[in-house]
C-alpha cells in the first residue's frame, strides 16, 4: 500500500517497511533523514519543524503519486515528522518497493529531493552558542545558506 503522513509522532520504520511489502517486489530502497548535531560546522542542539500541515500532506501525496508514474515501482511511503526534534531523531522517511533495484533507488532519491524542494515545511536550527534561526531566513546570521 501507499501511505503519506505529516505527524508529530516518531517515525516507525518497521511499520513503513510492512506497508511497502509485496511478494512481487525484490527491492526496497529507504531514505531516512535524521537531525544532525551541526550545520556548516556550527554545533546544533536540534531542529524545530514548522509546517502547513494540510498542504504538506497534499504535496507529499502528490510527490508519491508522481513517483509511481515516473518509475517502475510498486509502493511508496513518505512520512515527515514535525515539531521539536532532538539530534539523532528521524525527521523524514521515503520508502519505495519495486521489482528491481534501479527503479527503487531512483524513485527514493527523486522522492527525497522533491520533499525537500516542494513541501511547505520549515526548519529552525537550535544553535548551541546562540539564538535559534530559521533556515533560509534572509535576515539570519549567515550560517544558514
Amino acid at each position, binding site marked *: 500500500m501507499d501511505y503519506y503522513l505529516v505527524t508529530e509522532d516518531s517515525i516507525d520504520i518497521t511499520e513503513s517497511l510492512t506497508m511497502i511489502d509485496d511478494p512481487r517486489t525484490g527491492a526496497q530502497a529507504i531514505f531516512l*533523514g535524521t537531525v544532525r548535531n551541526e550545520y556548516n560546522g556550527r554545533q546544533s542542539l536540534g531542529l524545530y*519543524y*514548522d*509546517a*502547513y500541515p*494540510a*498542504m*504538506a500532506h*497534499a504535496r507529499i501525496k502528490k510527490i508519491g503519486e508522481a513517483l509511481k508514474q515516473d518509475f517502475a515501482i510498486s509502493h511508496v511511503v513518505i512520512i*515527515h515528522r514535525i515539531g521539536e526534534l532532538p539530534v539523532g531523531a528521524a*525527521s*523524514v522517511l521515503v520508502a519505495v518497493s519495486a521489482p528491481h533495484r534501479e527503479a527503487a533507488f531512483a524513485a527514493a532519491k527523486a522522492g*527525497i529531493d522533491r*520533499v*525537500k*524542494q*516542494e*513541501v*511547505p*515545511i*520549515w*526548519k*529552525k536550527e537550535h544553535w548551541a552558542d546562540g539564538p535559534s534561526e*530559521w*533556515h*533560509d*531566513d*534572509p*535576515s539570519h546570521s549567515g550560517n544558514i545558506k
Partner: protein
Amino acid sequence: MSNAQITVLFFSFAADRMNAREKIYELSTPVSIQEFFHKNLSASLKEPLESWLFSVNEEWVDPQYHLRPGDALAVVPPVSGG
C-alpha cells in the same frame, strides 16, 4: 467571520515577523494578493513580494490572484523540510 473577511496564515519566520500564525483581515474592495501584500503585510514581513510564495485555500496561486471573501491566504517562505 463576516462575508467580507479573509484569513491569512503565516509560517516560519513570516509568523515571527507578524507575531501571529493567523490573522483576519477585512476586504473592503476586491484586491490582488500583490495589492493586499503591499497595503497590509509588506511593512512587517520586510522581505519583498518576490521572497514569498502564496497559496489560497491550499492551492498555489500567483500574486495576481484576486482575493475573495472567505479565502484562506498563506504567506509561505522558502521551504526547508527534510
